[in-house]
């Protein structure tokens, strides 16, 4: 224990690290790569030689299933179905959320009127609505898109509202000194200042949309990655389940990365980093 603390202390004092220069970017990347390689090797050894059960597919089997499923074009079909639902629901919900959030943040009576209802609905997990939505709109695309739309509307709306509240009053006062009217203040002060919060809300809601999407596709669908994951269980095709899970993670990671870097590039003047 004492040795550990001494090591930690040295690291804290030099602020460089435990191993020689561990904070250097190259070392960090090297350690991450090592960790992934060792992890995959361990998985292969455990699943391939120690377990040897259909319940634990090896990485090699997973890659094989991925290639097989991708070559037959089925994987692309699932990805397309999932992404179409996600993008429609997320973008429409996001636009709604921005409009509602701005209205509630900038106009107090609107906020007071809707606040109790929103504070209540906020705590209902979006997926709980799947049953009434399928009763009302059937098991087709509409109910799934509506579910994602509902989820992302809420998150974007709350974030946008927080952004309006975080607006420094001095900025509004400064605009007033230059004789800006309420219209000018809304479009040239409130809206630009809120952009970073809106983008953050959109990113969070993208993550939540993926979660809702999978659940909805498991419960009521015949296409998509959630369906692939749930349906493969009936055939004990665990390698396909892993293909679905990993594709889903990669898609989530990629869409977050694309959206974040696009926003950081395009919205730099609004101080979004």
């Amino acid at each position, binding site marked *: 224990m004492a040795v550990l603390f001494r090591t930690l202390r040295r*690291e804290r004092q030099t602020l460089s690290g435990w191993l020689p220069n561990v904070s250097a970017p190259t070392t960090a990347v090297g350690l991450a790569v090592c960790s992934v390689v060792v992890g995959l090797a361990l998985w292969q050894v455990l699943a391939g030689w120690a377990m040897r059960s259909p319940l634990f597919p090896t990485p090699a089997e997973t890659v094989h299933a991925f290639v097989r499923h991708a070559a037959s074009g089925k994987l692309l079909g699932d990805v397309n179905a999932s992404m179409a639902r996600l993008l429609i629901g997320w973008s429409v919900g996001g636009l709604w959320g921005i409009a509602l959030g701005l209205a509630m943040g900038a106009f107090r009576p609107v906020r007071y009127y*809707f606040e109790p209802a929103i504070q209540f609905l906020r705590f209902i997990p979006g*997926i709980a609505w799947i049953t*009434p939505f399928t*009763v009302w709109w059937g098991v087709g695309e509409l109910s799934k898109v509506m579910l994602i739309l509902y989820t992302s509307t809420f998150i974007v709306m709350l974030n946008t509202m927080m952004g309006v509240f975080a607006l420094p009053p001095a900025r509004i006062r400064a605009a007033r000194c230059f004789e800006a009217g309420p219209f000018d203040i809304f479009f040239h002060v409130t809206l630009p200042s809120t952009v970073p919060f809106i983008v953050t809300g959109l990113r969070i809601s993208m993550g939540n949309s993926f979660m809702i999407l999978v659940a909805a596709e498991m419960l009521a669908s015949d296409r998509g990655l959630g369906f692939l994951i749930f349906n493969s269980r009936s055939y*004990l095709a665990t390698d396909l389940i892993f293909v679905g*899970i990993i594709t889903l993670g990669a898609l989530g990671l990629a869409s977050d990365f694309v959206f974040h870097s696009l926003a950081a590039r395009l919205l730099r003047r609004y101080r979004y980093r």
Partner: protein
Amino acid sequence: MRGLATMAVEAATGEGQGAAARALRRVLSVRWVLYVAGPITMLGAWQYASDAFATKQLFPGPSETFRAFARLVASKQLALDTLASLRRIGLGFAIGSISGFLVGLTAGYVPLVRHLLYPYIHFLRFISAIAWLSMALLWFGTGETGKVALITYTTTFVVMVNVMAGVASIPVNRLRSARCFGATEWQIFAQVVLPSTLGYFFDGARLAMANSFATVVTAEMLAAQSGLGYLILVSRQWLAVDEIFVGIIVLGILGWLTDRVLVSLTDNRFRRHRLRS
């Protein structure tokens, strides 16, 4: 003694003095009038829309929902389902937040561990617990273990990422000043690092609680014989939308209550540990 009406007028015109007049003025302010008017008009609109709906069974109003609530309470069905859901969440959340806190603290404190865990954390973060449902059912069966494991998974990651961010955000000068006063490494850990991360831990726990509710509902819909998710799903089979609404509303109330508990813990008990910017 002045009459209530006089008081109300004085309060509304801003002439009244004293606590009673102030309280009355508060109630009569635009804000509180709108706070009350909002839910009332919305409930009214809901009831009206439901009455106007052709097949009322598909879109019950507030009064039908309340009757279904009374029915489910009387048959003890609601209590049993609520308890089943809460037990799963409680167990998974406890295991997940403790392990997430410990791993997050270690990873935040020791760079080697952080760099080794980094790729896994940032990949698994994008895979929701629901996506693991099929594997959880195969590995742990359809019993309680699988559902608790899923909630543990969803809680661990959120709490871990938050605690790591908390450790990273400790100002270096705070550590240096503790060291200048001759604090041992253990004292720095217990009196600087730990308190500074508690706020982040509770923020993570709040997010994790919301995710746990979503996870438990989906898991119960897909593989369970009890719980609020099961209630919601099974009511669909005989088109009892009123019972579905009861399940949804109870979920909202439970989510709100647990969030309040976590917020009050953060706000009062640990306020002095919060970082001030």
